[in-house]
């Protein structure tokens, strides 16, 4: 299968996402200015500071030409994963409900946190056991999830580990259709025991399993 990883000006974890995805499949870069998903089976909007996070995190990136294609792809049921800044972009683009607000600490926070898998039946978490704990780092200034409406929660911060004041300890959500997933933690930074943890690989493996099932059908 092929992952496409979007690269905006100011993306930082794009190479990391490409490398992580390449552990389970092919991975190609998708340039922000090109209306071309390069036949990707799943799209990753990576972390970083697209457009410097100026104005509001994700606010400017959502208007990049490639995002029109991503929206179309999502409407057709394609898998879209937004990590950190990618999550912010997907919320701003209304591909996911809710919004991300500044951490209650008002500080950037890097921390290895424990996550609880709330829904292990999504295309992004099917390699996880229900209730499984994943050790994955967060690093952001704007990660406090907020939504006035109920949302489909996929991952939560384990008790007492909420790093940002997120509503109901929400760490990751998906859309109603289940094909667009956003999370603040960085699974691409948890794919190698040497750098801390391999729990993030499960997200990439889930996507691969889902895509190959679909192809098989």
């Amino acid at each position, binding site marked *: 299968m092929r992952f496409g990883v979007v690269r905006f000006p100011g993306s930082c974890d794009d190479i990391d996402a490409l490398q992580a995805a390449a552990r389970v499949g092919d991975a190609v870069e998708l340039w922000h200015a090109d209306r071309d998903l390069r036949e990707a089976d799943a799209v990753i909007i990576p972390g970083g500071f697209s457009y410097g996070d100026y*104005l509001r995190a994700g606010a400017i990136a959502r208007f990049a030409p490639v995002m029109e294609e991503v929206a179309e792809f999502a409407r057709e049921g394609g898998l879209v994963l937004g990590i950190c800044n990618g999550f912010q972009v997907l919320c701003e683009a209304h591909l996911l409900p809710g919004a991300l607000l500044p951490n*209650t600490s008002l500080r950037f926070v890097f921390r290895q946190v424990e996550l609880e898998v709330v829904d292990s039946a999504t295309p992004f978490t099917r390699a996880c056991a229900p209730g499984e704990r994943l050790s994955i780092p967060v690093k952001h200034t704007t990660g406090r999830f907020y*939504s006035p409406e109920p949302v489909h929660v996929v991952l939560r911060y384990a008790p007492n580990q909420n790093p940002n*004041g997120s509503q109901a300890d929400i760490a990751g959500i998906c859309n109603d259709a289940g094909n667009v997933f956003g999370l603040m933690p960085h699974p691409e930074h948890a794919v190698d025991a040497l750098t801390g943890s391999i729990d993030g690989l499960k997200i990439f493996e889930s996507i691969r399993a889902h895509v190959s099932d679909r192809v098989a059908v």
Partner: protein
Amino acid sequence: MRARVLIRPKQGILDPQGQAVERALPALGFDGISHVHVGRLVELDVDDPTQLPDICERLLSNPLIEDYEIVEEVPSHSAAEAS
């Protein structure tokens, strides 16, 4: 025309920046201050002011979490600068 857009956190949404200011004030010797909210100010020259509401809704603010207000229409930048 020079326009000024005020963007503030929607009521009911936690505003830690406002809280931080409120907490810091007594230590500096300022009392009697409350209900502090911190938002954004955007100022711009715009040829066609009828575009402004659209610009505010699509880019400058996120309507889910922020309200905006176009408060003022002042002479354009260059004029303002000269004054």
